[in-house]
C-alpha cells in the first residue's frame, strides 16, 4: 500500500515532453505529442478531449501500462522510465488503481474476491485483507452483494465494485478511463458522486479521462487534449 507522505505541494504526476508514437508499418502516428504536465496530488482531475484525441493513451502512460517513445514520467515522485516490466508491475500493484470503461471485473470471482484481488500481491494477512475488502464494499454500498459474480450485478454495481477494487489498496493515484461511458445518465451521476465521495474520503489523486459534461463539471482540475497535445 502506498506510503502517504509526499513532499509538500509535490505533483502526483509529472510529465516532461512526453510523446507516444505508434508505428504503423511505414507510417508513425503520434497519439501524444510533447506533453509537459504536472497533475497535483489529492485532487479530482479530469482529462477532457474528443474521441481519438489521446486521452486514453495519456492515461495509459500515467498508469505505467504503456511506455512513452520520448520524455520522462514521474509518478508520486518516482521516475518510471528505467523500471523493468516486473518492476512496473510491482509499481502498479502498490501505487496505481484502475477503473475501466467496461468495468473489467474478473468474471469467475465474486464481488468480494474482485475487490480483494489487488491486495493479494501486497503480502497482507488474510484478516487484514478481509477487513479492507469488507470496509471498501461497505463504502461503495455493496456489502450485501459481496458473494455475487459480475454477471449477477448491474452496470452501476459493477462500476462500484471496480471503484472499490481500485481504492482498496489505498493507491497514490486512481486512473479512470471514461468510467461513466457505459452507464445511463442516472447511474453515471451516482458513480460520479461515489468517486467524488471516495476521493474526498481517501484523499487519493483521481485522474479521469472523459467527454462526459456532467463529470467535467465536478472536476477540480481540468486538462484539455486535442490531437495528442495539451491545449492551454
Amino acid at each position, binding site marked *: 500500500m502506498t506510503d502517504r507522505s509526499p513532499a509538500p505541494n509535490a505533483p502526483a504526476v509529472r510529465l516532461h515532453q512526453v510523446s507516444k508514437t505508434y508505428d504503423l508499418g511505414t507510417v508513425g502516428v503520434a497519439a501524444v505529442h510533447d506533453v509537459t504536465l504536472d497533475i497535483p496530488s489529492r485532487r479530482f482531475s479530469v482529462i477532457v478531449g474528443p474521441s481519438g484525441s489521446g486521452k486514453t493513451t495519456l492515461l495509459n502512460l500515467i498508469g505505467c*501500462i504503456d511506455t512513452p517513445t520520448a520524455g520522462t514520467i514521474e509518478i508520486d515522485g518516482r521516475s518510471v522510465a528505467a523500471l523493468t516490466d*516486473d518492476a512496473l*508491475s510491482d509499481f502498479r500493484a*502498490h501505487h496505481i488503481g484502475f477503473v*475501466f470503461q467496461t468495468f473489467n471485473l474478473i468474471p*469467475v470471482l465474486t464481488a468480494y474476491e474482485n475487490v480483494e484481488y489487488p491486495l493479494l500481491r501486497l503480502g497482507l494477512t488474510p484478516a487484514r485483507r478481509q477487513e479492507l475488502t469488507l470496509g471498501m464494499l461497505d463504502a461503495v454500498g455493496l456489502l450485501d452483494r459481496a458473494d455475487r459474480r459480475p454477471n449477477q450485478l448491474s452496470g452501476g454495481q459493477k462500476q462500484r465494485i471496480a471503484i472499490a477494487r481500485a481504492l482498496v489498496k489505498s493507491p497514490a493515484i486512481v486512473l479512470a478511463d471514461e468510467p461513466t461511458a457505459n452507464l445511463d445518465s442516472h447511474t453515471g451521476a451516482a458513480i460520479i458522486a461515489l468517486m467524488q465521495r471516495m476521493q474526498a474520503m481517501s484523499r487519493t489523486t483521481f485522474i479521469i479521462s472523459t467527454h462526459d459534461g456532467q463529470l467535467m463539471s465536478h472536476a477540480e482540475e481540468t486538462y484539455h487534449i486535442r490531437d495528442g497535445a495539451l491545449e492551454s
Partner: protein
Amino acid sequence: MKLFTIARRNIRRNARRTALTTTAIAVGVVALLLFGQFVITTVLGFQTNTVRRTGHLSVFHAGYFDFGAGNPGAYSIADYQSVMRLIQDDSVLGALADVITPTVTLYGIAANAQIDATKTFVGSGVVPADRARMGRWNEYHLEPAHPDSGLSDGDISRGVVGVGLARVLGLCHDLAVPRCPAPPVTTATGADAPAAVTNVSELSRRETGTPAPGGARLDLLAATAGGAPNVVNFVVTRADPQGVKELDDAYLAMHFALAQELLYGRGAHEAVAIVLQLHRTEDLARAKARLTGLLAAHHLDLEVRDFGELVPFYGQVIGLFGAIFSFVATIMAIIVLFSVINTMSMSVMERTNEIGTVRALGLRRRDVRRQFLLEGALLGVIGATAGIVLAVLCSILVNRAGLHWMPPGQSAPVPLRLSAAGIVPLIGGVWTGLVIMSTLAALLPASRAARMPVVDSLRHV
C-alpha cells in the same frame, strides 16, 4: 493470487470445452492403461513360462554357451554336487534361490522301432521333483501352475516329448494326442530302409535287459562324452506342445539320471548346467552378480547366464511390445498435446481483456503464465484421473468377458486377462506423463498470454 481458484472456476465455466478436452485425455489414459496392462500381463506371463522352464540363472562350464551345443559332454560340470552345495550354503544365494537343480542337455536320435521311424531330438534331463517345483513358480499370480511334468522320480525311464516329435515318431495314437495325424506308411526297402534303427533297438534291448513300463516306447541313441554310441529305453508318457515348431519337433524331457546315463555311459556322471530359480525376478541382477563373484572366488571355470540370454526371444518380445506401447503413447501424447493447446489457445483469446486487466492490477508476466499453465495442468489432472477410473472399469469388463488369445511362446489359447500386477507404476507413469504433457501443451498459449502488451490486451474486445 487465487490462481487455483481462478483456474478451477474457468475450467468449470467452459464446461463443454473442458469436457471435450478431458475426454480426449481420458481416452488416451484408457488406451494406454489397457494396452499397458495387456503388455505387462503378456510379458509377465511369458516370463513366468520361461522361468518355469529355464529358471532365472544357469551355471555352465566356461565356453558351453558358445560351443557346448556341439559336444555337451566336453563342457560338463564335473563335480556339480559340490558347486550346488557351494551355492546353497551361500547366505545370499541360499535365501534368494527357490530351486537349485542340475540339468543335462543332450542331442541324439530317437527311434520308434515299431514303425521304423527316427528323428533327432534335443533332450533335457531334469530332476522331476525339482522340475515340478519350478513349474509352480508364480510370482505374479498370473498363470495356473504347470500340470504334472510327466516325469517320475521313481522311474527314470519315463518322460515327455513335444507333439511334433510324437507326430514324426508315430506316437499320436498311443499318447492320444488331439489333432495329430499318423505318419504316412512308407515302403522303403533295401538301402533306403532304416536298418540302423532296428539295430539300435536290438542294441538297447541287449544292454538294458529290462522291459520298459507301459506306454509308447522309444530308443534313444546318443554319443557319450567319450564318443561311443549309447542307447537307452525311453517310455513316453505324454506329448506336450512347445509353442515353437522347431522345438516341438525335437523336444524330449527325461529324468536327469537317464540323461546322465545316455550322455556319460559308464563314465563319471556329470551335469551340463546347474539351474537356479529365484523367488523373485527382481533379485536377478543381484543374484547373478553374487553367483559370478562366488564362482570366481573359488576359481571355478564356470560361467553364469540369465534366462534373457538363454531365451533371446524373451528380449525380442519385450522389445516388440515396448516399441508398440511407445508408439501408442506417442500418438496419445500428440492427441492430448493438440487438444490442450487448442483449448488453452481459445481460453487465452477469450480472456485477453482479463489478462490486460490483471496485468494492470499488478500481476507479473510470470503470474499470467503460471495461471494458464495451472489450468492446463488441471485439465490434465481431471482427464487423467477420469481415465484411470474408466480404465479400471474397462479392465474389469475385459477380465469378465471370457476372451481368449494365444500369447507368444504359448502352444494353446489362454484366457485374456489384464493383470493388476505392475499396475500401480503404470498408472503413476501414465497419469504423470499425461498431466505433464497437458501442462507442457499449455506452455505455448500461456507464454503468448504472458507476452501480450497490457494496452493491447485491454483494447481487445
